[in-house]
């Protein structure tokens, strides 16, 4: 078979990754509460063919629980990075096109947000909002936009100094026309990749927040909760409760990260060959 070029391979691989991610997400949706409901007779079983990941202290199937938890994580990750993305785009473009004063003020706010450790800030926001799904979602959304906003600001500033943007202005085009036709096509790639690379961050933060007890409530099948529960049994040698769900989380995050890098290759006009 003819060796495909770099870009085609990136497209194929990213479609494959998307399918896997969708599969995890959908399987989580179709797993109902009573499928996870276990019996105490089957508690603390190591992995076998009936229970791929073994069972937990209450006899619930860990594989199903993990999938369900990951699907919740993906929902929160998606929503949070989407909201963060919108904030980042608005702030980034606003800063780059606004006056000197607004630029200084917003840059200061960004520095402030970035100066505080993420997890502490998310904990505070989530706690103030009464934890749970919305607490976590808003906590993560409002803390992850800073990096991307900075990138977009720098990008817009750079684009504004490009000769073809200046020429466009002298050809009688308005500021908004230039924003839509000249700048946004350059930014979409950055925004998309930024969003996708924000996604694993959001997932991991959701997991750690739930793990620490400031996130989703204990009865929810969140990956952080599963890991937190497993800590109690780890010392008695029940490794599967922590290792297997943890591994799946890491794989998920790596897959998304890979997807982000692939999309960067696809979007970047200079990487079509190679």
């Amino acid at each position, binding site marked *: 078979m003819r060796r495909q070029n770099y870009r085609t391979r990136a497209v194929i691989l990213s479609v494959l990754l998307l399918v896997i991610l969708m599969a995890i997400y959908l399987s989580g949706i179709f797993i109902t509460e009573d499928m996870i409901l276990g019996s105490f007779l089957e508690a603390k079983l190591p992995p076998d063919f009936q229970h791929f990941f073994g069972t937990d202290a209450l006899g619930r199937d860990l594989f199903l629980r993990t999938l369900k938890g990951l699907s919740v994580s993906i929902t929160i990750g998606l929503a949070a990075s989407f909201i963060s993305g919108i904030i980042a785009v608005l702030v980034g473009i606003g800063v780059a096109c606004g006056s000197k004063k607004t630029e200084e003020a917003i840059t200061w706010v960004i520095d402030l947000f970035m100066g505080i450790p993420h997890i502490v800030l998310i904990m505070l926001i989530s706690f103030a909002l009464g934890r749970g799904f919305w607490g976590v979602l808003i906590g993560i959304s409002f803390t992850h936009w800073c990096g991307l906003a900075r990138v977009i600001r720098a990008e817009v500033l750079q684009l504004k100094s*490009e*000769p*073809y943007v*200046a*020429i*466009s202005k*002298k*050809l*009688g*085009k308005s500021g908004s026309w230039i924003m839509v*036709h*000249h700048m946004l*096509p*350059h930014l979409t790639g950055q925004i998309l990749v930024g969003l996708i690379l924000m996604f694993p961050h959001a997932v991991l933060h959701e997991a750690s927040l739930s793990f620490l007890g400031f996130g989703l409530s204990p009865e929810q099948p969140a990956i952080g909760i599963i890991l937190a529960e497993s800590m109690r049994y780890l010392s008695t040698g029940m490794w599967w409760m922590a290792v297997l769900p943890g591994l799946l989380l890491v794989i998920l995050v790596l897959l998304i990260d890979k997807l982000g890098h692939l999309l960067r290759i696809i979007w970047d*006009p*200079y990487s079509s060959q190679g």
Partner: protein
Amino acid sequence: MPLEAKNLYFKFQKQESWILEDCNIRIEQGERVVILAPSGYGKTTLALLLAGYLKPDKGQILLEEKQLPKEGIYPVQLIFQHPEKAINPRWKLKKVLEEVGEIPEGLLTALGIEKPWLDRFPGELSGGELQRFCVARALMAEPGYLICDEISTMLDTITQAQIWQVILEEAEKRKLGLLIITHNRHLAEKVGSRIVELE
């Protein structure tokens, strides 16, 4: 209706000395003025000022005794030295021309722009080919004055000759005022009706 610069002063930073100090120039309609000067004399700065890309610190630029417009198509168009920077790398060349308006077939043929080029990206064409598009775009904007800032420095002689022939023809036809900036004395003598030499 001449294009005039009166007592221009310009510098990029506050502490610097003047790049342009009390600079005056007057270009009549249909005139082809060549500025011949070594590097660092502010030729490009003057071009940017006249085409409205920079604002003078003091002095004024007048077209028909009037201030130039702030909005809309600028009546003084500048062709840059580096065509690859003057064209959006994400746009197909068709869109580059359509940014100005309807594509005039005759002009493209005269400039030696081939049909298939229109569907390519800028990265797929050479500097000379791109410069033809920049010339076409500037002419399509129907300016009263055209400033050519070393537009043929990096082109081979055949391309140079072809591009200049089109510009001179169009200038003749439309009574364009040209300001040509170059290092090349032979070119200056060939295309200019008046040569301003700075030393």
